[in-house]
């Protein structure tokens, strides 16, 4: 009997495409919610992204009761408590998160407090603490990368105790993710590139790491195909709504893939680098992806080779001998990075970031070795291995 076993779960309704925002009032009414609160950040508001959301609701006679637009890039327990306070005093009955990873994570945590009660979000930290569904919750992503709209995780900093609190529960998942091309149309080029490469990494790691399974594979390959076909088109023409939508869909699909099959060493190194050198997550992903694939190659030759079909299309795939496909996949990713470097200077090496000094590599390796993502890397990683990958990624 085979030892194969897997689990796959994604109960999030995906509402995607043209005029998707206009479905929000109907979806809210379907859950008997009439007093929604928007949780977002200043950048989203300044970019005018709230306007179409509010207009879509008001046109249907649905009043947005409260807007909290002060979520910081690294949200904290204090912010979560504040927002929960506003929610309660305004007698809201549902939450719409509009933004990237931080706004979405914050809204997830707020939903715990307003559903379960209390002011101490730390009491709900950990896995499986929640035992019942929370308030109606909708997510409108404004970046195409994190996939937070389909992950059952939130991370909130406890600024007093200086720790990051993880929350894991399937009840954190929103009832629906609304993917509207208007939301990512104005994303600046370097953020478009970095977040798309985050999604690319989610899909690639989901497809090559230990918990891969047939269902997450299907989402991962479809996401890679969309990113390969659309990313450079969007870089050339940022107002290309069709290809913007492709990227946004790919990000959600990659999110579904990795939330069911986990990520690996790219994320372990990226989390460590982000914490130590304050580099954006997507940038770290793009930077480390080919070096980690090269490190893992003998353990992932087959699945990595299969990805060539989605990275470079059927002609290239068919013309490349099976034994060379894994290397060809890495070359395809490198070519994409080179193109992004040309477009918006997205760094390809640690040196190119200008924000990392060589002395930090040792520390990055140590921290990466303690990261949860390393558990699912297909190849065992020692401290020496991690340092070797970092040295190759240096310049």
């Amino acid at each position, binding site marked *: 009997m085979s*030892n194969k076993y897997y689990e796959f779960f994604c109960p999030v309704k995906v509402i995607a495409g043209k005029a998707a925002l206009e479905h929000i009032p109907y979806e809210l009414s379907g859950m008997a919610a009439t007093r929604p609160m928007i949780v977002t950040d200043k950048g989203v508001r300044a970019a005018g992204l709230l306007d179409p959301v509010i207009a879509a609701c008001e046109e249907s006679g649905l009043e947005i009761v409260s807007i909290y637009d002060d979520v910081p890039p690294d949200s904290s327990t204090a912010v979560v408590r504040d927002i929960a306070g506003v929610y309660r005093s305004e007698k809201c009955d549902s939450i719409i998160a509009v933004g990237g990873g931080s706004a979405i994570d914050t809204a997830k945590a707020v939903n715990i407090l307003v559903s379960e009660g209390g002011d101490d979000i730390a009491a709900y930290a950990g896995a499986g603490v929640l035992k019942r569904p929370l308030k109606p919750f909708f997510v409108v992503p404004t970046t195409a990368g994190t996939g937070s709209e389909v992950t059952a995780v939130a991370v909130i900093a406890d600024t007093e105790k200086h720790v990051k609190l993880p929350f894991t529960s399937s009840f954190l998942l929103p009832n629906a993710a609304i993917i509207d091309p208007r939301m990512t149309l104005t994303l600046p080029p370097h953020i478009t590139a970095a977040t798309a490469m985050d999604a690319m990494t989610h899909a690639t790691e989901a497809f090559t790491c230990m*918990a891969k399974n047939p269902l997450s594979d299907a989402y991962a390959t479809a996401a890679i195909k969309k990113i390969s076909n659309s990313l450079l088109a969007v870089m050339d023409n940022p107002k290309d709504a069709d290809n913007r939508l492709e990227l946004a869909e790919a990000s959600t699909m990659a999110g579904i893939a990795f939330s069911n099959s986990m990520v690996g060493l790219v994320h372990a190194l990226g989390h460590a680098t982000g914490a130590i050198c304050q580099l954006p997550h997507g940038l770290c992903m793009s930077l480390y992806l080919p070096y980690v694939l090269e490190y893992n190659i003998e353990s992932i030759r087959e699945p990595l080779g299969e990805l060539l079909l989605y990275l470079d299309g059927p002609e290239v795939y068919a013309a490349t001998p099976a034994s060379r496909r894994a290397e060809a996949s890495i070359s395809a990713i490198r070519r994409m990075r080179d193109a992004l470097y040309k477009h918006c200077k997205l760094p390809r090496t640690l040196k190119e970031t200008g924000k990392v000094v060589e002395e930090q590599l040792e520390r990055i390796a140590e921290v990466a*070795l303690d990261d949860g993502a390393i558990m699912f890397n297909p190849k065992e990683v020692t401290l020496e291995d991690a340092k070797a990958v970092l040295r190759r990624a240096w310049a």
Partner: protein
Amino acid sequence: MIAKRIQPMAFQARRLYVELMFQVMGRALQAVSEVDATVQKDASALPEGFLFEMMVMPQGSSLIVEHVGNGRFHYHGNSAPRPVDLSIQFKHIAHAFLVLSFQEKTSVAFANDRMLVDGDISYAIRMTRVLNRLESFILPKLVAKRAVKEYPANLHLPEKLMSAARIYLKVASNFVETVRA
């Protein structure tokens, strides 16, 4: 209780095996932590007095070790002196058996959602590394290759140190044969 009537002996044997393997691993963890620098290095980052538990849900067998400082573990048997800091919980005895009979690697078991981690993930990663190292000590090379992702190149322990554990293991593998049959 239909299942019980069909295979009572196999279930009983599996339970005994898991209990025995927890004991073997608990003792071996303590022994290895007293001599192996790699294990000590990984363990020394754990707080002193840190209690680690591996258990089978809902309230089955368990293994508890304490980090007593300087990378040394102390085996507490199956009862903890106070609430544990990190608990790795198998969802079912069948899953514990797969891992403890080295049919499924620890990391694969995590990937397959066979077990839950209650506590700090980075400590869980450390303990998984320690357990991998331990498995490569007490198992013959061939079996260890199956149990851990990669067989370490730098094992330099006196053979006799682990021979006691290996004797236990022999007894244990007889259980495997019994249960598999």
